[in-house]
């Protein structure tokens, strides 16, 4: 990506990734009031606003840690829209009574919309991955956890008291199982879309 297109507000993303308390506090101070206002005006309460904000910030942290978040628009619009869309989804899920949405008009730039799409897709992929990971057998989960925590596969083999060859094969097959399931889910989704 063209570095010059990155918005100066990238500092908020970098601060989140670095777990910088000053930056996190600043985000709350500057950007939380608008989100709270929107949620409390649209069938929500303060606790729900707190949860939505926290979920979105965790998503941004994860995305930034995966090096997949480069801000090309102001943080304000991007963050507000992410929170808003998440809240509207919550409302849709609980869909009990007719909910009236009071939107204040907010002009969204193309780049903000694109970024939001990316973040939501990142979130979906991660959730899908987590679901599939939980579906794996206990042994597979253990092998994968160790393989990605310890430094070498030799160490994993020693820890599990099996040979190097066995653990390598097992790891390939466990990642393979995940690959197969995710591939199937992807194919199914693209069928739905077309």
């Amino acid at each position, binding site marked *: 990506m063209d570095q010059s297109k990155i918005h100066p507000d990238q500092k908020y993303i970098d601060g*989140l990734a670095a*777990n910088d*308390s000053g930056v*996190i*506090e600043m985000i*709350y*101070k500057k950007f*939380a009031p608008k989100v709270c206002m929107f949620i409390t005006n649209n069938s929500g309460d*303060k606790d729900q606003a*707190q949860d939505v*904000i*926290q979920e979105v*910030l*965790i998503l941004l*942290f*994860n995305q930034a*840690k*995966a090096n997949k978040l480069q801000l090309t628009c102001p943080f304000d619009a991007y963050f507000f829209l992410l929170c808003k869309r998440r809240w509207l989804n919550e409302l849709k899920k609980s869909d009990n009574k007719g909910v009236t949405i009071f939107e204040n008009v907010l002009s969204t730039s193309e780049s903000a919309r694109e970024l939001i799409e990316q973040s939501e897709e990142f979130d979906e*992929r*991660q959730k899908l*991955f*987590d679901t599939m*990971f939980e579906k794996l057998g206990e042994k597979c989960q253990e092998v*994968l*956890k160790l*393989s*990605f*925590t310890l430094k070498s596969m030799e*160490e994993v083999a*020693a820890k599990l008291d099996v040979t190097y060859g066995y653990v*390598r*094969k097992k*790891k*390939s*097959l466990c*990642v*393979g*199982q*995940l*690959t*197969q399931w*995710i*591939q199937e889910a*992807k194919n199914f989704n693209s069928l739905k879309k077309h």
Partner: protein
Amino acid sequence: MNEERYILFDQYLQGELTVDEKDTFEKQLAENPELAEELETFKEMHLQLENKFGKESERQAFEQNLTRISDKYFKKKKTKVVSIQPWYYATAAASIIIIFGLFFFRYDQNPSFKDYNNPESAYFTERGVAEETLKKAEDDFNGKRYAKAIPLFETILKENHSPEIQYFYGISLVEESHYKKAEAVLNELISGNSIFKEKAKWYLALSKLKQRDYKACKEVLLTISEDFENYEDVEQLLEELN
């Protein structure tokens, strides 16, 4: 599930295929978009796994910090003003008992060896001597296989009685709880004048700590110079011992 395929993917990504095998595989990839897509997903799984486990502790730290800041911002009230009721006195009395209990409980909590045990990594072989035993000793030590490293160090020390090897040998002995031997080795370093002098004192203190000899541990700690690179650990441990 196509087992062979995933084993091949893994070998390909680890760069373990021969030139011929690699060529054949890449040709297949070019001809078969489905296979290529599956390889992409396979790679994505690695990224997801790395993200999930490699950054787990960072994520936990972030979530904790975030919750704290969030609660502060939303001013979560943990205490409410209550009028004094009879049960209040009972509760107050109970809390005082609990506080005392905690106080004594805390008082009884001695610092433990494993809280302070962060041996530095050994890098013997970067200095030109690519000797096999040395390399193995380094690997075993860094991999925390101290029982294996000990005999290797003993072999090396017979030929090369260097303070550096002695130091790492001493740590390994402490890790394996061979205290007598360990302390002899460390004391030899302490009486010498190498750069491992203060470090050896620190590990002598940790050896005492591991044996729960808190008095001796403290005595050793007090001899460590403030120039020691991890002096803040010394101060912290001293404080916990007091």
